[in-house]
């Protein structure tokens, strides 16, 4: 499987990082939580795999479509 870019579907602030690089994720498992429109909106693994890299930190302000992580 090739590297999979994980993007945020909403603009906002990275509120909380949930998964650590190297973690094995199930499909639908939370990677991080964005704060947008005063709501906590999770960014989830679209499929099972390993979290290779986190590209953002808590407090970062992101645009819609920004890459937040890489999975293998």
């Amino acid at each position: 499987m090739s590297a999979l870019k994980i993007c945020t579907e909403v603009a906002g602030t990275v509120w909380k990082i949930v998964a650590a690089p190297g973690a094995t994720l199930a499909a639908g498992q939370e990677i991080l939580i964005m704060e947008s429109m005063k709501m906590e909106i999770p960014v989830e693994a679209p499929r099972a795999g390993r979290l290779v890299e986190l590209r953002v930190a808590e407090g970062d302000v992101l645009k819609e479509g920004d890459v937040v992580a890489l999975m293998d």
Partner: protein
Amino acid sequence: MGWEKEVDELRERQRLAQQMGGPERVERQHAGGKLTVRERVDQLLDPGSFIEVGSIAGKSRYDEAGNLESLTPASLVIGRGKIDGRNVVVAGDDFTIRGGTNEGSIRDKLTRVETMARDLRLPLVRLVDGSGGGGSAGMMDKDGHSRVPGYLGWDLVVANLNTVPVVGMALGSTAGLGSARVCASHYSVMVKDTSQLFVAGPPVVNRLSAKQYEKNELGGSQIHTRNGAIDDEAESEADAFARARRFLSYLPPSVHELPPRVPCDDPAGRNVDWLIEAIPREDRKVYKMRPIVEAVVDTGSFFEIGRFWGRGVITGFARLDGWPVAVMASDPMHYGGAWTADASRKVARFTQLAQLFHLPIVHLVDIPGFLVGLDAEQTATIRYGVAALTAIQQTKVPWCSVIVRKAYGVAAAGHSNQSRYSVRYCWPSMRAGSLPLEGGIEAAFRAEIAASPDPQAKIAELRERLQRLGSPLRTVEAFAYDEMIDPRETRALLCEFATLVAPMREAGPSTFGYFPL
């Protein structure tokens, strides 16, 4: 002696036409991961149901003695057949002949098939695989003059949009007129990797651009199913045909009839126990709306349309006790369910579709308002939002809204059609108002807060008081909303709604007034 010789000659010509562009081009079509037009027609329709029209239309060459030397069929295969036993009309481009271009071929077939669908009042499926206008420079050379653009038959295309369900499928590289024929539809689908949609493809664009585009990069499904040009993306052509068949299953053959009910073995009174805890008590926590939709409609009946664009609103068809309905539901996972410009466009388009084919609308509402911020202003959110609200108020189909959580601001006025009686329910988790308390308190009580020796304490005090007043029990006590329900009983009430309003559905053409898109 009878007419066997002529029938034999007809069969021979049909055999020649079935060869399409010849073995080499058919091979090339397959090598590109694509089916031929005849394979597509066979896969789309019920087995053996295709009745072709113009089966030997094409360019024939005769020798001096009057014997047929060759026959190149028209690059458009048309006819009728059945989908799940119901009649439909099909038009399929043959890319193996002149790249599926229409203009260079027998143009009358194109208008004929649109006329057939309109006048037989049957759904039309366009299998588009080509560049549409095609070879304009070549045509000019042949004609000896230029042409003013005007698509022969566009009047029919437009008439069909108001008369019969139209499915537009992009099954290869579609550009110009080809892509217009895909988008001039009620449901459009393209196949991942093997189909593209362009105003103009890389050969034209790359001459004007420093960056050189590969075709999927310029017009692949990852672009057009995210911007709303195309409703859905299919994994394969087979998947695309399955989607087309499913889409049509909820609709009448034309606006002159009503959508059919199907037998249902899912009990209408089935309670859904987990819905009592579907909505988190903490305001900031989101939840997944799709499982809620799937739980309340007839099992397995939800067909989502436009999954990847306007994502704050989920739209699709479903059945309730066998009755087909149009479902809209907020998706809090996307900006908390706020209406963006795209979500508003999606609502307007979907509302129009439901009205056109007489589908009652069920709306599961969690709308915190329009999206706010600079992006929202730059994308003209209020303009498209107003279009959506105007479209909703102009519908004549029955509505049922269930406010499951938030209903704030102007956008939430679109929870139902307020121009007529709508069935209106809310869950105990409803929170409603013109502004959420956050920010709303500061705006409404500015003077009071400023005059207070401890403004923060004042805000906290006001918040606590207003939160108590925000209980939906108080709202329904004041009859400011119709009825609060136990979420577990939602399915039973929606099924009751669908049965109740079935006789209110009225067949016939729809007239929509202006809505400011």
